[in-house]
């Protein structure tokens, strides 16, 4: 990772990789949506409502993955003082927050016809709601604290402390009695979903991952540009 510590080298690599990442993202969404709305059968119990799973589950996976990346980047900023680590964590947060919101909203749209309620204070739903609050809090720290080095320090602590919520989300359906169904893809013993539904779900999961990768690289490029502008302004202000 240290070889990407130089922002110029990082930008060169990111600019070269981005067109390919966008093409892969679009292709994955096209194939995933074809599988989700075209070839996957209706569920014998849930009927057509099961198709909400193909946007709900990848959004939830992505929200958890993005927060884990933020925590990892924050740890790297503290331990290795990697110059891009704070930039990576800061720019990932708004993207993760949108994924988290989508997981909650599409879950609610699934809950109403299946459970008869838009929302229940179930362990899985509550822990995902806590993740949303963590995202909002993390973004608010960068907005509220003017001094970037102080904001980075507080944000790192929040990202690392908040990471404890990720295993809680994952295992909430096993640790507590929950309305939410248990894990059916990433579980010991293999997936319990039929192949006809599993492949579109995995392709949509990959599509969300590549979408995050593309948006994150663009956001990091913007943030590095904004920091360069700030430094130029300070340098010019200092000279005059």
């Amino acid at each position, binding site marked *: 990772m240290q070889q990407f510590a130089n922002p110029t080298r990082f930008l060169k690599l990111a600019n070269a990789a981005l067109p390919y990442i966008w093409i892969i993202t679009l292709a994955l969404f096209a194939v995933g949506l074809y599988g989700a709305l075209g070839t996957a059968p209706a569920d014998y119990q849930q009927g057509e409502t099961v*198709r909400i799973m193909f946007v709900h589950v990848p959004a939830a996976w992505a929200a958890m993955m993005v927060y884990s990346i933020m925590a990892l980047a924050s740890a790297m900023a503290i331990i290795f003082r990697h110059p891009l680590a704070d930039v990576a964590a800061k720019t990932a947060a708004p993207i993760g927050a949108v994924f988290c*919101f989508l997981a909650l909203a599409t879950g609610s*749209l699934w809950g*109403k016809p299946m459970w008869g309620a838009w929302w229940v204070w179930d362990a899985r739903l509550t822990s995902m709601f806590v993740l949303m609050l963590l995202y909002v809090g993390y973004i608010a720290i960068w907005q509220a604290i003017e001094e970037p080095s102080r904001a980075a320090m507080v944000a790192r602590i929040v990202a690392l402390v908040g990471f404890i919520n990720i295993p809680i989300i994952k295992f909430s359906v096993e640790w507590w009695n929950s309305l939410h169904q248990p894990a059916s893809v990433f579980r010991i013993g293999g997936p319990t979903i039929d192949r006809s539904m599993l492949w579109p779900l995995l392709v949509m999961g990959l599509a969300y991952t590549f979408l995050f990768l593309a948006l994150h690289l663009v956001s990091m490029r913007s943030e590095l540009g904004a920091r360069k502008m700030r430094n130029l302004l300070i340098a010019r202000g200092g000279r005059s």
Partner: protein
Amino acid sequence: MDWTAAHAGFVTASYVLSFIFIAGLMAYVLLRDRRVKRALLEMEKEKP
């Protein structure tokens, strides 16, 4: 997908909502990138 099935509206709402928020996020990220790139180019052109 049977669009006349029971609860098809919930399925449609989920996909439309996801599309709107993802498109909005992409627009926000890409427009900010373009804005920063332009501003930086202008700043670098200016003589200090």
